[in-house]
């Protein structure tokens, strides 16, 4: 198991190194010079040069890459070109919104999807299954911003249980912060739950057809016992894969929802940074997201091994 983890860790480090190179290269070749963007079209060449020097844009690319990577390793992400504040500080502020939101949404989606998927699988072809599958079809088809607007309409405007947008901040207390994250989390979670429930159902149905399920029944387990004791754990592998992908998506892909609920999250930060050519912020946030995705995959890999003993011995 330890060897398996070390091997995964090695591939994780390699992925990160390659990702940093790719991100740096892609953003370098993207058109638009931040200095000229900041100073406008009428800027004097010497002012431009001075700003370029100040931003560190005049040194060779290799050196800039190394400074950037070295800085990130020590927690120094550089200074934003537009806001003139440390990028690390900006990211940290936004992270406190995006990370809890992603975790909240993922928890909700799992809590909805598992029972729904298991229920549907155990009642294959019966009305309960058809109802759940119909609902998930809807959940997959309808975009999450529409859910978001409906939630605002019902729970914020009509019922007035939640605020329609904005983030209270963690200093106002856990309850207040969670309250402002609840509607966005639900809006994010519903489509994900629909996908996850479908995966859970089909994974379980595959497992239910396996020979060892018949063996379990032959031992005297009831249908339900066999499902819980032997079916679920075997069905978890594809489900874990989807959960891992969903977390990455929720962390990085919530731009629209953050926009709808006016949340100061990472998605909005990237959006703003791109429109103002604040390349250092874009690079850093993208790198951070890549790091998060790779870390999540690492955790999913470890979870695979915990679930399936065959992966532990086959390194």
């Amino acid at each position, binding site marked *: 198991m330890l060897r398996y983890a070390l091997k995964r860790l090695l591939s994780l480090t390699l992925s990160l190194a390659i990702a940093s190179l790719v991100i740096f290269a892609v953003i370098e070749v993207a058109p638009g010079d931040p200095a000229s963007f900041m100073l406008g079209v009428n800027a004097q060449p010497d002012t431009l040069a001075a700003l370029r020097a100040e931003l560190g844009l005049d040194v060779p690319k290799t050196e800039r890459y190394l400074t950037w990577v070295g800085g990130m390793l020590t927690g120094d992400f550089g200074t934003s070109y537009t806001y003139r504040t440390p990028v690390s500080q900006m990211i940290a502020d936004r992270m406190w919104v995006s990370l809890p939101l992603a975790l909240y949404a993922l928890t909700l989606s799992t809590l909805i999807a598992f029972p729904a998927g298991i229920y549907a699988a155990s009642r294959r072809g019966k009305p309960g299954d058809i109802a759940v599958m119909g609902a998930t079809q809807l959940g997959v088809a309808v975009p999450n911003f529409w859910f978001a607007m409906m939630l605002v309409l019902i729970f914020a405007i009509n019922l007035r249980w939640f605020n329609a947008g904005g983030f209270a901040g963690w200093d106002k207390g856990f309850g207040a912060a969670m309250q402002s994250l609840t509607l966005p989390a639900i809006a994010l979670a519903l489509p994900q739950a629909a996908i996850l429930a479908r995966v859970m159902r089909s994974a379980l149905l595959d497992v239910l057809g396996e020979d060892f399920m018949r063996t379990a029944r032959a031992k005297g*387990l009831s249908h339900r016992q066999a499902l819980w004791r032997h079916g679920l754990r075997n069905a978890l592998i594809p489900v874990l894969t989807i959960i891992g992908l969903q977390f990455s998506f929720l962390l990085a892909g919530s731009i629209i929802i953050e926009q709808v609920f006016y949340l100061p999250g990472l998605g909005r930060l990237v959006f703003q940074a791109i429109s103002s050519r604040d390349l250092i912020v874009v690079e850093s946030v993208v790198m951070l997201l890549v790091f998060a995705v790779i870390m999540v995959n690492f955790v999913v890999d470890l979870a695979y091994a915990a679930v399936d003993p065959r992966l532990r011995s086959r390194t």
Partner: protein
Amino acid sequence: MSLLEIRNLSLSIGAHDILKGVDLTLGPGEIVAVTGESGSGKSMTALSVMQLLPESAHLSGSIQLAGQELLTLSEGQKCTLRGQSIGMVFQEPMTALNPVKSIGDQVMETILIHKAMPPAQAEERAREVLTRVGLPPERFPLSRFPHELSGGQRQRVVIAMAIALRPRLLIADEPTTALDVTTQAQILDLLQGLVTEYGMGMLMITHDLAVVADLADHIVVMRHGEVVETGHTRHLLRHMQHPYTRMLFEASDHQVTLPPVPDLQPLLAVADVVRDYRKPRTRLFSKPEFHRAVDGVSFTLHRGERLGLVGESGCGKSTLTRAILGLEKVQRGHILLDGTPVFSGHTPDRSVRRNMQVVFQDPFGSFNPRHKVDRLITEPFHLLDTPPTGTDRADRIAEMLTAVGLSPDDAGKYIHEFSGGQRQRIAIARALIIRPELILFDEAVSALDVSVRAQILDLLAELCDAYDLTYLFISHDLNVVRTITDRVMVMQAGKIVEQGDTEQVFSDPQHPYTEALLAAAPRLPKFTQGVA
């Protein structure tokens, strides 16, 4: 009183009648074998007793276990019965165990769901049972997972689960079909021992008459969901009444006559071939270790000769086959077909490949279901420089389909419209259509029913006459190899331990391994032949 009494049992699933008025009796300590071909309803009879049928199944009649009617039980009562009063062993040991649970947990589960006892006590029982089935915990700790065991060992775990509570009835559904002959003999021995020791009744489902001939007390022959003949084993085998039973019996031991081998000209030359596989490293920087799958194999196959290759699973048969086909690189030695090396790196040498074709075991998995038969069997045409087109192509297809006993009209059909035996005929047509010098049959008749197998063997003999076939016939079934080959090689752990004239090797084996294989292979008793 009998232990199991099945009276007038009928089963339908949806609109299909699966069983029609089945009667069967089994006493304590008795072994009753239910035999028949696929679709005869033998497995469904077993599952009916187990009450593990699909939801749409409808049962009528009566099944009594020690006087208790099973058909009227509630689901809860059935669960109590399964595992405790009736144990079941399945065909596929590779998939019958939950891959994510340790063998100890799985054996303990049978005990714990039926008996309230502390886990430590259940573990002790699990140890005892595993020791009884030949997996002593000193060598096979309870923490082992199924994938760490061989097929035979896994079947022992399944048996341990089934007998953990000493059920009164043990149902074994093709328990040894997926196993090698020597392992089969051991498992049959174990089952027989358990029946005597525990006084259980055993209902054994099998397609192989030879397996039950010296094991079962009674034989029940089924066909199309009906019992056609039943009786005491010796009596039934001596005085077979029903033509179907006689047909089954004759087909199991079907003999063909091959045309004589023409004068010996070498076609395939295999010299000192070695194939190593790299094992996964045990430590990050340790020196890689190798598993030698094929170890210095040399032989020559002559034009017009039919050569057999037998051995147990894992002995290197399949690796050698792939190497001959040029699909695997070998570490040492040469494989020459008509003087040309078969392996030429990653670009297959068409001039060699067009002279070799292969027929695989699985008649269901080896065809693309979306292509029609004409396209399927003309696939090898891409190996030719000028593939036939138009009427020429149609003629070739018609000729081949006729040669393998199908109709030219079948060319427009899809593969799902054919039975297993017909599919194997199509596979042979596909191999034959470009008239290769050499055909490899890789377990080509192993998945077929005995009667179909006999027909395919007849077909092969006919084709030998018509097309002067040269083939390498790879099989674990010694009876088939004996009749369908001129010469045979016995492979063990990557080495050819014995080779020679087939009849010579079978009647007077020289190597101890060959002797062991032959001794383990189930044989039909000879006394019945000619008696009807």
